[in-house]
C-alpha cells in the first residue's frame, strides 16, 4: 500500500506539471495584454511599459515559464496583476470558503441522493421510484445559475429564511445560514447523478444470491439492505462522488458568482477577465491538486469499503 501511495504521489507531480504547462501556454497565447488592462479604459503607454517590465512580461517565454514555476513550487507566490497583492494571500483568503461550500454541497448531495437511490431501488418501479427518477432527471437538467436565482427569490427575498453573501466566519450560524442556498444549488445537480447511480448499483446487488442468502438467514430487511446490499453497492457510488469534485469546482464558479460567495471560483473568473496570469495559473494548480488528492482518497477508500481490493492489483 505504501508503495502504491508513493507511486500515486509521484504521478501527481507529473500531472501537476502537465497542468501547469498547458495553463501557462494558454495564458501566453491568449490575446490581451494584462498591463494594458491595468490602465483601464484610457491607456498610459509609459506606465504600461513600466508594468510590463515589472511583471516580467518582457522576458522570453521560457524565462517566464521557469520563474512562475519556481515561485509557485517554493511557495514564494507572484504578485497578482489586478490586485497588486501576493497571490498566496489572495488564494488563502478565498480557499476556505470554496472548500466549505464544496463539502457542504457534497454533504447535501449525498444526504439527498443515497436515501433516494436506496428507496428507489428497494421500491423498484413504484410511484416513489418514478418520482425520484423524474426529479433527478430535472435536477440534472437544471442550470445552476437559474436554480440559484430561483432559490434566492423564494427562500431569501420572499420567505426570508436564509441569508446570501459571504459570511464573516464560516463555522457560525451566519456561515451556515448563508451556505445552505448555494450548497443546495451546487448539490442538486450532483445529487441527481448520484441518486441514479445508487439506484442502479443497488438494483444489481439486490438481485445477487448472497442477498437472498441473507434474507433466508432471517435477517431483517434493514440489515439486509443497509449492511449487505448497500455496502456492496457503494463502490461505484464512491467513485462517482469522488469524480464529482471537479464538477464542484466548475459549478462553484457560477454558483459563487450568483450568491456572492467569493470563493476561488469567483476569483478565477475575474482573473481570466483581467488576464491576471499569476492568479489563473495558481488557482488552476490548486484545483488540479484538489482533484488528484480526492482521486487518491477515493482509491484508498476502496480498500476500506471492499477489503478484497488490493492496491498492487489495482495498479496492475
Amino acid at each position, binding site marked *: 500500500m505504501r508503495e502504491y501511495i508513493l507511486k500515486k504521489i509521484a504521478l501527481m507531480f507529473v500531472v501537476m506539471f502537465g497542468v501547469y504547462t498547458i495553463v501557462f501556454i494558454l495564458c501566453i497565447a*491568449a*490575446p*490581451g*495584454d*494584462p498591463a*494594458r*488592462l*491595468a*490602465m*483601464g*479604459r*484610457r*491607456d*498610459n503607454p*509609459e*506606465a*504600461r511599459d*513600466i*508594468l510590463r517590465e*515589472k511583471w516580467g512580461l518582457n522576458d522570453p517565454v521560457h524565462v517566464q515559464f521557469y520563474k512562475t514555476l519556481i515561485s509557485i513550487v517554493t511557495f514564494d507566490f507572484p*504578485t497578482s496583476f*489586478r*490586485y*497588486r*497583492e*501576493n497571490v498566496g*494571500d*489572495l488564494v488563502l*483568503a*478565498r480557499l476556505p470558503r470554496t472548500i466549505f461550500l464544496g463539502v457542504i454541497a457534497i454533504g447535501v448531495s449525498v444526504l439527498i441522493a443515497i436515501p433516494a437511490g436506496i428507496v428507489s431501488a428497494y421500491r423498484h418501479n413504484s410511484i416513489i421510484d418514478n418520482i425520484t427518477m423524474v426529479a433527478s432527471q430535472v435536477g440534472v437538467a437544471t442550470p445552476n445559475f437559474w436554480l440559484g*436565482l430561483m432559490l*434566492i*427569490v423564494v427562500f*431569501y*427575498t420572499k420567505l*426570508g429564511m436564509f441569508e*446570501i*453573501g*459571504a459570511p*464573516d466566519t464560516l463555522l457560525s450560524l451566519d456561515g451556515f445560514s448563508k451556505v445552505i442556498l448555494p450548497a443546495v444549488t451546487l448539490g442538486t445537480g450532483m445529487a441527481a447523478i448520484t441518486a441514479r447511480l445508487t439506484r442502479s448499483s443497488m438494483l444489481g446487488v439486490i438481485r445477487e444470491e448472497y442477498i437472498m442468502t441473507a434474507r433466508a438467514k432471517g435477517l431483517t430487511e434493514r440489515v439486509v439492505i443497509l449492511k449487505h446490499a448497500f455496502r456492496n453497492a457503494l463502490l461505484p457510488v464512491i467513485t462517482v462522488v469522488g469524480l464529482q469534485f471537479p464538477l464542484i469546482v466548475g459549478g462553484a464558479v457560477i454558483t459563487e*458568482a*450568483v*450568491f*456572492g460567495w*467569493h*470563493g476561488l471560483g*469567483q*476569483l478565477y473568473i*475575474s482573473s481570466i*477577465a*483581467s*488576464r491576471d496570469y499569476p492568479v489563473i495559473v495558481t488557482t488552476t494548480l490548486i484545483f488540479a491538486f484538489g482533484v488528484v488528492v480526492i482521486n487518491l482518497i477515493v482509491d484508498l477508500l476502496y480498500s476500506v469499503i471492499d477489503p478484497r481490493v488490493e492496491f498492487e492489483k489495482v495498479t496492475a
Partner: protein
Amino acid sequence: MRTRARHYAMLFAGEKTMRNRKLRWMGFLISLVLIGAIVAFSGCISEEKDSDGDGIPDSEDQYPGEDDKLYLDDDGDGVINKDDEYPGRNDTRFGGAFVRWSSEPSTLDPQLVTDQASIEICIKVFDTLVHFAPGTTEIEPGLAKSWDVSDDGLEYTFYLREGVKFHNGRNMTADDVKYSFDRLVSEELASPRATFASEISDVTVVNATTVKLTLEYPFIPFLSKLAYPSFAPLPQEEVEAAGEDWSKNPVGTGPFKFVKWDAGSVVVIEAFDDYWNGRPYIDTYEYYVHEDEEVIWQGFLAGDVSLSGVPSPHWEEYLEDDELQEYSMTVSELVTYWLYFNCETWPFKEKAIRNAVCYGLKKKEILDTIFKGRHLEARGPLPPSLWGFDQGLYDDYEYTYDPAAAKALLDENGIVDSNGDGIREYEGQELKIEYQSYVSDTWQTAAETHLANLREIGIEAEYNQYDFATLIGNMDEGNYTLMTLGWGTDYPDPENFMILWETQNIPDPNSARYSNPTFDQLAADAKAEADTEKRLQMYKDMTAILQEDNPQWWFFHPRSTFVWQPWIHGIKIGGQGESNEKMIDVWIEPDHQ
C-alpha cells in the same frame, strides 16, 4: 523806591490773586462737573460690562462668564451647542449602516483607481483639494479653502484649511500634497492615472498651508480634474510603513475611515469624527461584493441593500410601484455609448459610407425595445447633462434613421452593387465588414437588428463578440472596422470627451483614428480659453464637426434610475454617478439604524 517794574509786578500780583481765586472756584466747579461726569460715565461702563466677551452685557447676560452661543442650538437638533457632540449636524440623525452591493474594487490606493467600485470607496476615504458639491458637478472648496489662479493660467495657488486631520490623527500640510502629487507620477508606482497629472510641471510648498501648482500650459478644466481621488493628499509615513499592503490599508482625510477589506467579500468604512466638514451621519458604509444585478435587486427588495439601480428587466415593475418611485431619482449620466468606425482603414475612411451607415441603422426602436425607453438617443458626443451640450445641434442632427437617404448617399458617391448580389462595392471590394462587440446581451440584440439594417443598404456584416481584453487589444491595434464601446467622463468637462478625436491621441483614446486639423485646432484652443462664452462656442463647433463627419454612430446616453429604502434620507447623486458621492448628508431613520 518802588520801581515801575515792581509797581507793575505788584499790580499784576494783586490782579493775579483775584483771578486765581475766581479760577479756583471755576476749577472747583469744573472738577465737580468732571468728577460727576466721570462717576456717571464710569457707572455707565460698569453697567455695560461684557466680561465673557459674548457681545451681551454682564447685566443682561443669562450666562455670565460663558459665551452664550454655547447655549444656542445652531443646527436645530434640540441639543444646545455646549452639549452638542457634532455641532452643525443634527444629532438625531446619527447612526446606522448604509449597505451597498456592487462589483469588487480592485484597489483602495486612490492613485491606482480606474474602476467605479474602487472610486466609490476611495472618494469617501480620501478628500481632495477641491471636490464636487453633493449631487452636482459643480466644483467647491475641499481641503483647499480657496485658491488663486495667475493671469496666464499657469499657476494655481491653493490655501489649505488648517487643522485638517488624517485618519491617523496627524494634521495634513502642504508637504503631504507635494508628496502625493510626486508619488502619482513616479515610475515606481506606474500609475495609470499619471496621465491626469501631465499638465503639472511643478509642485511647490510655499508654507505649511499653501501649495503652488505650476502647469506646462494653460488648462481650464484643471480644477475639475483635481477632484479625482488620485489627487488626494496621502500621509507619507503610512504609505511607506504599509508598503505593498498600502492599497489594503488606506489612510486619508475623507469623511470615512477604513475599517476592513475582507478579500473578495466586503469593504467596511466608518464615519470619521474629526472630518473637517462634520462627521457623516451614518456610522458605517458597508460595501458587499455582488456582481449580479438581479441578485442585487433581490437584496434591495429584501431590505438588505440601501441603494440600488433598477435593472432593465424590472423597469416596468418600477413604473407600476408608487413607493419605489417615491424614493428614487433618475440621473442623466455623463456617458455616451457608440459604434466606432475605423476612420483610418477601408471602408470607413470614406465619410460617405460612415454617414450612410448612420442613416441606415435603427436607433430609437432598439432603445425602446431593449431599454424600454429609459435612455436618451444620442446624436453627438456630449451627453445632455454635461456643460457644452447644445440642444439646437441635437435637434438638428441630420443622420437619423432613413434607409432611403443612406442608399441615395452611397449611390451619389458611386458606391453601388455592380454585380447584383445585393452587396455594394467600394474600391473594388464588396462591402463585407466585421461588427465587433464585447460580451453583452444588449449589444447582441442590437446587432441582430443592425445586421438586417446594413444588409438593406447593401452592406454585409458579420457579428462577433470578444471578451473585453481582446476587444481592447483590437481597438488599440486598429484591428477592427466597426466596434461597440462607450466613454464616460473622468472629470465633468467636455474636454474629457473631445480628446477622443484629437489626432495626437491616436490610437488611444482616439480609437476611431479620426483626424481633422480644424477640429484639432479648436480642441487645443478650447483647453486654454479662459472666456467661458468663447469656450462654449468652441465645443459647439467641435460637436457640429463630429455630427457631420460621424467618426462614430452615436447610440445612447444612459439615464440611471436609483432607488433607496424609504427609511433613508439625504441621497444626492450627480451626473458622475452614485459612486462619486461622499454621502456625508445621508441619514437613516432611528428605527432602522
